[in-house]
């Protein structure tokens, strides 16, 4: 490999980046080469110091996606950052990715529970209102033998519905907080790894 092939490889490794940015990066590396040659370093030594073009390109990409995930928080951007890290071998697939996906699963489950509670609560309130209007508790005959009748039953149904919906809402809010925390911790972890690889 020499300067030209290095720059060509770096260029193709950076494909997909905005043209201006890519040219800027290539300019920096070309300048580095020229300045180092001028100061008497051999091409071989420079190449060794710079590191493989694919690795360099991945570092540019990773800092870019992490930056984007910080500026515009979204699950897609976070996913991209995680993917870019896997590409760099930073995200240990067996030890980290497994538990990580499990955590994602738990978060999804918490959301599901919250939504079902809210839906169930709204259903009960709706049912209670219908019962009050029609005077019929046909939709819940099982409650009658328990000795609850008439107005008391309707109040109980409405109360239970409101309580369920409120509980669901609380869990939903908690899930949102958890998601935000999860997001920040993921980014922190990725950045920590970027730093560690740089110090090696």
């Amino acid at each position, binding site marked *: 490999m020499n300067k030209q092939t290095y720059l060509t490889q770096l260029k193709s490794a950076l494909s997909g980046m905005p043209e201006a940015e890519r040219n800027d990066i290539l300019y*920096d590396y070309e*300048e*580095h080469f020229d300045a180092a040659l*001028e100061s008497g370093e051999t091409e071989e030594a420079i190449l060794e*110091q710079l590191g493989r073009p694919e690795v*360099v390109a991945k*570092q540019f990409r990773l800092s870019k996606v992490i930056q984007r995930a910080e500026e515009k928080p979204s699950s897609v951007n976070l996913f991209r950052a995680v993917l870019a890290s896997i590409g760099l071998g930073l995200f240990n697939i067996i030890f980290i990715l497994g538990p990580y996906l499990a955590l994602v699963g738990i978060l999804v489950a918490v959301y599901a529970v919250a939504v079902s509670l809210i839906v169930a609560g709204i259903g009960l309130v709706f049912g209670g209102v219908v019962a009050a209007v029609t005077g019929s508790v046909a939709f819940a005959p099982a409650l009658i033998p328990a000795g609850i009748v008439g107005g008391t039953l309707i109040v109980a149904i409405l109360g239970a519905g409101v309580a369920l919906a409120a509980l669901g809402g609380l869990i939903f809010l908690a899930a949102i907080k958890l998601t935000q925390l999860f997001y920040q911790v993921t980014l922190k972890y990725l950045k*920590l790894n970027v*730093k560690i690889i740089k110090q*090696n």
Partner: protein
Amino acid sequence: MNIQFKKGVLELCVLSILSHRDCYGYELVQEISKNITISEGTIYPLLRRLMDDGMFTTYLKESSEGPPRKYYTLTARGRQEQAALAAEWRRFVTGVNLIVEGEHGE
């Protein structure tokens, strides 16, 4: 050690050199690797990130030989950041020295 702090050390080096004078990329790399071991290829991603964060701007200046070079120059924000990181660094070193020299124990 504080992660933010660790992350700041290389940044502090870059910002400190630039607080003395404007440099081009290779010059910065040389200045740093004179004293600490770094992987040279990774300084450029860091420079780019710091520039995106508004720590410095660049300008082109003719060199005696070859094409013009890209010089990095600190912004006001970069100077502030350098001062803050340097102060944090001094506090840290002072603390470690006190422990290493055993002034607490005796």
